[in-house]
């Protein structure tokens, strides 16, 4: 197909290497490394559905509502427990995949808004070292090892 106009795109930006969802996936991998893959992070990215305005109508529209583009969830995933997934964090991101983000910590029942990568990493660190989260990870690791022991009966020679 011949093009009638010249290319007006001077340079197209590449994907961001340090967007909040990438940071979450890296933390999930750190967790897997530290637990010998007993518990790891699973981080799906979903579009935030704005379609409700179609149905609810303009009268219900609140212009102060942030224009979130995506939600990145962080689940603890336990391969040994049939891939059991346990929701930990729900992070709402703008379409730019930058900041601010709103992070809901479902284990500690806390919500916070982070305006920069530094703030986001501090909020993650605080959540990771909270007692409730450490208890959940310990519980999942214990259960994971229990399954291992159940399956580790000595094999008899045929």
């Amino acid at each position, binding site marked *: 197909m011949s093009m009638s106009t010249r290319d007006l795109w001077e340079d197209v930006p590449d994907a961001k290497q340090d967007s909040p969802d990438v940071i979450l996936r890296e933390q999930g991998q750190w967790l897997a490394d530290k637990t010998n893959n007993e518990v790891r992070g699973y981080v799906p990215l979903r579009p935030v*559905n704005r*379609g*409700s305005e179609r149905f609810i109508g303009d009268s219900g529209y609140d212009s102060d509502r942030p224009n979130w583009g995506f939600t990145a969830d962080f689940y603890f995933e336990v391969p040994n427990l049939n*891939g059991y997934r346990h929701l930990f964090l*729900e992070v709402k991101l703008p379409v730019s995949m930058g900041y601010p983000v709103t992070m809901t910590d479902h284990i500690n029942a806390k919500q916070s808004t982070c305006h920069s990568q530094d703030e986001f990493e501090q909020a993650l660190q605080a959540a990771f070292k909270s007692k409730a989260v450490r208890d959940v990870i310990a519980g999942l690791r214990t259960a994971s090892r229990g399954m291992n022991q159940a399956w580790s009966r000595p094999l008899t020679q045929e």
Partner: protein
Amino acid sequence: VVNLLFWNIRGKRLGHLVRALVDEHDVDIVVLAELGETPWDILTALNAGNARHVFHMDELLEQVTRQRRRQPHLFWRFEREAMCLRRNDDGAIFCELEATAGCRILIVAVHLRSRMHRSEHDLFEFASRMGAVIREEEARLGHQRTVVVGDFNMNPFDVGMMTCDAFHAVMTQAIARGRSRKIGEDERSFFYNPMWGCLGDRTPGPPGTYYYDSPGHLPLFWNTFDQVLVRPDLLDVFDTDSLRILDRAGSAPLLKRKNGRPNQREASDHLPILFSLHLEGDNVHEHT
């Protein structure tokens, strides 16, 4: 036949009433929301005395979700290994039940977030998220033999229950048997919502599951927040006639005598729902 009971017990100690319902209706799976006692207390009540069968619960789930008030709890009286915990999400637990040899069904127990101080947009977003999570889990498991039961904090006619982005739950089996419809590029599966048939006073049971005399301009009075949704692959298994909103637990009435509303002093402000699945034989469809 598998009989399933759901009840939001409003943070009260109602283990004795749950046990009465289990004995009376031969319940196999109990799903409870807003426990007022520990799940171990409920389990003790279910298995006390001359209980005909032993109930189980997932102790891992209970240990790792102790702080969550909204967490639904699931008890079953099949072999412990018959129920496999798959996922814990925002007010929802996903379990797979090995119904017949080699055939599993997904049971999603939900207690979605309260309507209090939230707009319809918020409720839609919560429902939309849960719809997406259910579709993701079905894709992971490779089947759509799914039942969703619980306190949705929405009525069957609310946007979050009906739209394709959320639960896509329709009011007739005939429509649901069409399995899905295409919206743009996406094929979206239906749920059948039999609770449409339980609304109002021309039904055998109470007019809804929850009564709220709202001070606003649009009071519904009776709401049906407690619902069950069934995927088309389980329609031949789901016993429509078995679905009931219960108004007594053993000899204890759950409605007040003077006005017929839920007796929240003696029981809960929600009424329990009960239904049956005929899981034996070849009636579980295997569309994958």
